[in-house]
């Protein structure tokens, strides 16, 4: 990592704060994990190795509802697939190689991607990505440990409403994604499917069956958005679309004015 300049310092500070804010709710993950029956080392390994909030909550949620390990792993992996798509986009901006590439991949999550691609130039993109990724990693793991120890000390999880807290965590992760009618219908349809099939399917699998709602929502034509497939990054993440990338085809940086003009032209890059 290069030394910070006047330009990159605010980006680093932003990354640090995103890490602290995200880390705080690592406490709830740690507490919910032990409430679901995991021990403290298992909760820690999930935060260190899986390191993707939604997927981690999914693992403990499926286990808590009596689902099999296979159902837990499948749900968590499907939920984490979006990280591969984030990687497709940020890898082009980071040009990391060797072990650094593996570390970059591991740190590719909602938060680091959002901060990285919101930056106007390549230098700040890199600083934003690394500072956010490393800061979230540090605080998320630290607070997972705190939460797991606290959760262990609390005793009966139901008495403290930890099962309802897990519902709260899922709805809070879902909420910012409900940006238009189709996303809301998809959510209601998926929730209904899950409840309708749950008496007839093994625990954990209703969630996977409900994922079919996403296939239908994605396959049906939608007049309100273009058919160019650029909608992969969540709308709640503050960023310019990468099709409006601030870089010219040869990788050089566009001036702000050129960049704005390209955006108005619809991102022909």
């Amino acid at each position, binding site marked *: 990592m290069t030394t910070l300049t006047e330009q990159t310092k605010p980006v680093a500070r932003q990354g640090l704060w995103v890490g602290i*804010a995200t880390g705080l709710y690592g*406490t709830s993950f740690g507490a919910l994990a032990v409430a679901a029956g995991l021990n403290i080392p298992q909760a820690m390994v999930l935060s260190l190795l899986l390191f993707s909030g939604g997927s981690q909550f999914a693992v403990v*949620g499926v286990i808590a509802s009596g689902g099999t390990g296979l159902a837990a792993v499948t*749900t968590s992996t499907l939920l984490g697939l979006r990280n591969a798509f984030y990687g497709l986009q940020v890898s082009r901006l980071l040009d990391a190689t060797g072990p650094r590439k593996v570390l970059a991949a591991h740190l590719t999550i909602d938060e680091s991607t959002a901060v990285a691609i919101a930056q106007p130039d390549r230098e700040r993109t890199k600083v934003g990505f690394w500072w956010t990724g490393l800061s979230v990693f540090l605080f998320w793991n630290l607070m997972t440990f705190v939460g797991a120890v606290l959760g262990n000390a609390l005793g009966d999880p139901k008495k403290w*409403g930890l099962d*309802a807290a897990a519902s709260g965590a*899922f709805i809070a992760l879902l909420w910012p994604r409900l940006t238009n009618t189709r996303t809301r219908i998809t959510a209601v349809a998926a929730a209904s499917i*899950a409840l309708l099939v749950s008496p007839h399917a093994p625990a954990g699998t209703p969630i996977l069956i409900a994922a079919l709602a996403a*296939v239908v929502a*994605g396959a049906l034509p939608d007049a309100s958005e273009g058919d160019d497939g650029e909608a992969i990054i969540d709308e709640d993440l503050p960023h310019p679309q990468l099709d409006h990338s601030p870089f010219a085809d040869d990788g050089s940086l566009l001036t702000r004015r050129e960049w704005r003009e390209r955006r108005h032209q619809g991102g022909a890059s």
Partner: protein
Amino acid sequence: MSLWTTVILAGALSLATKLLGYLIPHEWLDGPLVSRVMKYLPIALLAALVAVQTFGGSNGSVVLDARAAGLLVATIALCLRAPFLLVIVLAGASAAILRAFGIG
């Protein structure tokens, strides 16, 4: 599958998924249909998790208890733009209070 196997397998697959984005040619995953399904996938999975976590009873039954009150309070908090951690705490506290009074 033991808990440890589940934890390590889920973690390894997560890292493998992330690496995929850095290693495979961009064109392979760039189709419009794939991108659109990928946009809705987290929405469907999280909504299903909300439903099962809130209303799931033993053996796949659907029950209404203190968790539903927790979800309602969480939803109101989200409408009022409460931060993530507060939403979680309020959901848990509502259910805990109801149970302290012997409800749900």
